C-alpha cells in the first residue's frame, strides 16, 4: 500500500488528526498527539495496514524555542510498507501518550527518549532514565542543554567553546 493510501485510511478513520506541513518528505506523516494511542492501535491491528514492527523512536529538538518532536518509524513485515509518524510537542510541557503496551519495544525506546529529551510518555508503566544515572539533571540532547556543574561533589568537565564551523 502506498503512502497516500495509508494517509487517506487514517484520515477516514480519524478526521482532523493529520496536520498539514509542507516540510514533510517521503513517507512522513504529521499527526495530532491527542489521537496517537488510538491511531497506533489502528495502525497495528487494521488488516490493511498491519504495522507490526516499531523500528525506531527518535526524539528531535527543532531548536530556537521550536517544538520537540517524537518520531516513530513503523514497518509492516507482512505487507512491506513503511511510514514515519511525527508528533510535535510543546517545549515546556512535552507529553504524549505511551504506546509501550502496543509494541513492547516502545518501553525502552520511550525511556531512552525521555532520558535524552524529557518527553513524558503518559501511561508508561516504568518511565525512568535508562542511559544516564537516575539523578542526572537536565535533558542532554536538547539544544539548550547546559551541563550541570558538579555531580555528587565531582566537577563535571566543560568543553571549551569553539568557533563555529565554516
Amino acid at each position, binding site marked *: 500500500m502506498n503512502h497516500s493510501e495509508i494517509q487517506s485510511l487514517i484520515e477516514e478513520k480519524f478526521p482532523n488528526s493529520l496536520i498539514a506541513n509542507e516540510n514533510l518528505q517521503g513517507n512522513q506523516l504529521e499527526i495530532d498527539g491527542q489521537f496517537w494511542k488510538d491511531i497506533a492501535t489502528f495502525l497495528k491491528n487494521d488488516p490493511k495496514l498491519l504495522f507490526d514492527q516499531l523500528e525506531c523512536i527518535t526524539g528531535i529538538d527543532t531548536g530556537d524555542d521550536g517544538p520537540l518532536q517524537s518520531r516513530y518509524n513503523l514497518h509492516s513485515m507482512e505487507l512491506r510498507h513503511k511510514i514515519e509518524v511525527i508528533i510535535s510537542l510543546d517545549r515546556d510541557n512535552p507529553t504524549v501518550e505511551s504506546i509501550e503496551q502496543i509494541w513492547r519495544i516502545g518501553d525502552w525506546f520511550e525511556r531512552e527518549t525521555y532520558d*535524552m529529551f524529557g518527553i513524558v510518555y503518559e501511561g508508561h508503566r516504568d518511565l525512568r532514565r535508562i542511559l544516564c544515572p537516575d539523578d542526572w539533571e537536565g535533558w542532554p540532547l536538547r539544544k539548550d542543554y547546559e551541563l550541570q556543574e558538579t555531580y555528587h561533589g565531582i566537577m563535571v568537565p566543560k568543553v571549551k567553546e569553539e568557533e563555529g564551523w565554516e
Partner: protein
Amino acid sequence: MGVIQGDQMVLNIGPQHPSTHGVLRLEVMTDGEIVSKITPHLGYLHRCFEKHSENVTYEQVIPYTDRCDYLASMNSNFGYVVAMEELMDIKVCERVEYVRVIMAELNRIASHLLGVGAYGLDVGAFTPFVHMLRDRERILDIFEYTCGARLLYNYMWVGGVSHDLPKDFKKICFKFLDYFEPKIDEYNQLLTYNKIFVERTADVGVLPADVAISYGVSGTNLRASGVKWDVRKEEPYSIYDRFNFDIPIGEAKFGTLGDCFDRYWVRILEMKESIKIVRQALKEIPEGDIFETMPKKIRPPKGSIYRRTESPRGDLGYYIESDGSPVPTRVKMRSPAFTALSCLDEISQGWMMSDVLCILGSLDIVLGEIDR
C-alpha cells in the same frame, strides 16, 4: 509493596562479571533458584555518541560509529555511509561497493566467531573459544593488511573507502576462505554436537516469533525463531541483490523453535553464507578508482532519513536529520543489541539462575552498542 514474600531474594549480577559481555548490571529477583523478574541497568558504557555527533562534521561521525559496535566496526561504518549516501543521493562506484561487501561479510564472520566462541565460554566450554579466536585473528590480519587497523577501522567513508585493496588481496582472501571453510565442521565437532552443550542450550529460553517481533528483536535472534527476515534480502542496500545466498532460519534442531541452541546454530550457518558472498564478490570485483565518487564537501540537503542495514546483531538503523550545514542536527542509532536485551526479562522468567546467563549469552549482545 509491603507484602513480604518468604522465598524471594534479589540477586545482583555485574556490572563487572564475565558473563555479561561488557559492563551490564542485572537485578535478578529469584524465588529459590527460579528467576521471577530481571531488571537490566544500562548506561555504564554510555559515551554520548549522539551528543558528540551533533558537534562534529558528518565525516567525523564515522570513527564514533566504530566504537559503538566494536566487534563489527565495518558493519557500523557501512550502515552510516549507506544512510548518508541515500540522503545525499550519491551512487558510489562499482569497485567500492564490492570492497565494502567483502569487508562487511568478513567482519560478520569475525563477529560471529567471537559471539559463538564466547557463548561456549558462557556455558562452560573453554577450548572452542581459543580455536575460534585463532581464526578470527586471521581475519583481523586481513583488515590490518588492508587499512592498517585491527579493530577500529574508520574504513568506509561517504562516497568511498579510505584505502584500496592491496595487490595480492584476492590471493590472501581466497587462501583464508579455503582454510576457514573446513574449520566450521571442526567447530561443530568440538562444540555443536557436544552432548553437554546441547543439554545446556536446547529447549532453554524459547523466544516465540510474535514476541520477538513485538520486542523489535532482529537479525540472527529473530531468524532463529523461524522468521525468514533479513534486511540484505528484503530491503537490499549496496549490491546485496546481486549475490546468491540463503537466509538460514531456526529449525528446532535439538529442541523447540527459537531456543538458545537455534540462536547459536543460525550463527554457525550464517558464517557459511558469508563465505559464499565473499567468494562471489572476489570473483566479480571490477577495477576502478575508489576516490572517484567521493564528494569534496559533505553537505547533505535539508531533510531526514532513516535507513537500516543488517549488522551481525540485527537491524542497525541510523536516523540522520540534516539542516543543510556540515554538522548533523541529529544522529540517532537504533542498535540491534538494545532491542535484543529488552526481551531478556520476558524470556528468562521461570528459568533457573544458571540458565539466565545461558540465555543472555545466546542473544549475543555488545554493550558498547547498547549504551552508545
